[in-house]
């Protein structure tokens, strides 16, 4: 009886409900786009403000943006390697910023105060569509990186160091996007659920440490996603000897 009570109320948290937008005969999750537009808009405004007046002696916002740029460059350079990291740095950086802004935006902004006809606003990365989209983009990019850098020799990677590896390497091409998307989706959704359940059960004090933990997880997930994407690209462009 208790358990069914819990689940009925849990359902009131509107897990897995979406705000459907109908465009022609395709339907999309409106709440994901709403939050992502707000967050990415804020990110773009922030970046435009910071890069509006670039000086040789960085001040304020420019300092922060340069630190961010340096951080992303280090990430891309260590994973992809000195030779081609420049081509992929914007992509890796965009992944990092998108995931980070989505995660933190979902955790920090009290979206629940805005009532929607169906579903609720939250981190765009807590929707499986977003994370699969990101993961598939990563897959496409590492294929593209490998093929454009090494041509058909890219497929040597599948039989390196021995042809026995072939089935495992092919399997990896499927597990890579799968693990990327489900890791991010699971972590962010779980964090949101834990916080909402705790807020629902104990509305005072107790959710706060969990919220901080959520912020930490969110940042870590952004770093993990960007690092793994860069690592996959680096693996594809690496020269075997």
């Amino acid at each position, binding site marked *: 009886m208790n358990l069914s009570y819990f689940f009925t109320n849990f359902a009131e948290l509107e897990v897995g409900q*979406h705000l459907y937008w109908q465009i022609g005969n395709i*339907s*999309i999750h409106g709440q*994901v786009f709403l939050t992502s537009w707000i967050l*990415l808009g804020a990110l*773009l405004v922030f970046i435009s403000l910071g890069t509006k007046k670039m000086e040789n002696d960085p001040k304020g916002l420019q300092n922060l943006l*340069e630190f961010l*740029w340096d951080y992303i460059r280090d990430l891309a350079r260590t994973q992809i390697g000195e030779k081609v990291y420049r081509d992929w740095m914007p992509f890796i950086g965009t992944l990092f910023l*998108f995931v980070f802004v989505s995660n933190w935006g979902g955790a920090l902004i009290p979206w629940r105060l805005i009532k929607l006809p169906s579903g609720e606003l939250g981190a765009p990365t807590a929707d499986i*569509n977003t994370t699969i989209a990101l993961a598939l983009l990563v897959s496409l990019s590492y294929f593209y990186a490998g093929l454009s850098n090494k041509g058909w020799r890219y497929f040597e990677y599948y039989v390196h160091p021995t042809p026995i590896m072939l089935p495992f390497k092919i399997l990896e091409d499927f597990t890579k996007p799968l693990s990327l998307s489900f890791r991010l989706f699971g972590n962010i959704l779980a964090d949101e659920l834990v916080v909402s359940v705790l807020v629902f059960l104990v509305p005072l004090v107790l959710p706060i440490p969990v919220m901080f933990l959520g912020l930490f997880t969110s940042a870590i997930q952004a770093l993990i996603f960007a690092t793994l994407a860069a690592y996959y690209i680096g693996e594809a462009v690496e020269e075997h000897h």
Partner: protein
Amino acid sequence: MFVSYLFATEGGLFDINATLPLMAIQVVVLTYLLNSLFFKPVGKVVEKREEFVRGNITEAKKKLAEVEKLEAELQTQLLEARSEAAQIVNEAEKDSEKLYKEAIELANSEANTSKENARLEIENQTSSAREQLSQQADALSELIVNRLIHQT
């Protein structure tokens, strides 16, 4: 009930639809936007500064090497000058010693000659005095003899 939400045909946690490709397009567009708004301009500024700093460091290193070379040169010059000075002092000391010795010798010899001269003079005068004396003694003795003869 919860499980039915997970896999509901309409809705559910794993409801994959057109959101996926649209989100992918949105991320690609975002990549281009961020590239032109963020990565390119910031990269340009940061790399320009890094170039500037690197140039400054190499220049400073070059200057430091030059300074060290000059310092070493100066050190050798200083050492040379010191040894030269020591040599000069040495020579001067020798010279002065020589001069001192010469002066003493000269003084000694002068003193000797004047001593000799004085001695000769004394001898001369003694002999002349003695001669005079003997002459006077002769004259006196003659006078005495004459007187004695005349008395008798």
